[in-house]
């Protein structure tokens, strides 16, 4: 049996696809048989971030509609033989698939993989419902911004209501220089506000832009973001990896409120 993880956020543009690509790559590096599923039907992107866009023949909708077998649609990664991508369809829309079909799709992959990673589309409509349907665990990606955190809170509420068993937070694009001078919320502040356990924080790193340009995820490389994603993967496997981010909080009262919220 595999663990099924959905990467979601509510707001678009916070780094869901980058996070999916890097966590998928990281899990593969750690020796896990991993498949990434791009569930963003109509706005396919995970293939491009992985650098696999030229190898697509069949897609998720083809599998669901029975136009091909699962094995024909799965694309093996360029670098890691235990990593696969099931690409999304670019010329269809979200209504092409329903949650039941998605659950069956995930179920068909259970025997062949240790980890099934679902890259969720932005929003809270059909695409979100499809992506979370088969998942037992959710990673909510946010950035330290008011709009992203507000949407993350909405998503967490929906995941709670949908009985999601495990919900963890990833704070992406943290700029320590700005946190230090008080012009960005710290990881602690974001955790206090959302009251969801943290699984990792990823620094804002220009290496991410370069990696996306090249179509090669950073996990496994000697970059700040690459290291942060590898740490997240190790925590997913149950390892106790300490968080090394410098945390600056806004004084005693934010500490007190966080204490009260945890109590």
């Amino acid at each position: 049996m595999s663990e099924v993880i959905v990467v979601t956020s509510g707001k678009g543009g916070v780094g869901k696809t980058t996070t999916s690509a890097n966590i998928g790559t990281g899990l593969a590096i750690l020796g896990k048989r991993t498949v990434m599923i791009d569930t963003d039907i109509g706005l396919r992107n995970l293939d491009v971030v992985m650098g696999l866009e030229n190898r697509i023949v069949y897609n998720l909708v083809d599998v669901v509609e029975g136009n091909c077998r699962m094995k024909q649609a799965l694309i093996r990664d360029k670098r890691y033989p235990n990593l696969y991508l099931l690409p999304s369809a670019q010329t269809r829309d979200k209504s092409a698939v329903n949650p039941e079909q998605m659950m069956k799709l995930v179920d068909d992959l259970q025997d062949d993989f240790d980890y099934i990673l679902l890259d969720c589309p932005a929003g809270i409509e059909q695409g979100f419902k499809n992506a979370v349907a088969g998942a037992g665990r959710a990673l909510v990606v946010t950035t330290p911004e008011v709009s992203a955190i507000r949407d993350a809170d909405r998503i967490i509420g929906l995941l709670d209501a949908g009985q999601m068993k495990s919900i963890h937070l990833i704070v992406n694009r943290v700029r320590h220089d700005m946190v230090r001078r008080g012009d960005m919320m710290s990881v602690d502040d974001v955790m206090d506000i959302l009251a969801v356990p943290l699984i990792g924080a990823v620094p804002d790193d220009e290496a991410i832009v370069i990696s996306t340009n090249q179509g090669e995820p950073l996990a496994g490389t000697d970059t700040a973001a690459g290291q942060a994603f590898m740490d997240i993967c190790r925590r997913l496997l149950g390892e106790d990896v300490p968080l090394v981010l410098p945390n600056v909080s806004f004084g005693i009262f934010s500490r007190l409120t966080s204490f009260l919220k945890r109590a």
Partner: protein
Amino acid sequence: MRYSRTSVLRRKRSGAIAAKRLKSLLAADQTGFPPEVLEMLKDDLFRVISRYMDADASRLELFVRRSDETASEEDDGCPAALYTVIPVRSLRLKGTIA
């Protein structure tokens, strides 16, 4: 941009502003109450506390936690709990009451 020394010291850092705005925003989102109703509630809470001690209205916080996070035997059956943090400048009772 140039700041005089006093304006730099006086400027409230935007990270703290963001955190404060988010807390009221999420309280409104989660309760479904309009933000102005929550402001009224905060004002009332502040007024009550201020009768007894020197509270700091600018830092009063109000937030909601869903029941699965607050679950305990006492609040059994409640879907959510309302929390407030009211910083006080001094714990000494105000003269008129003492």
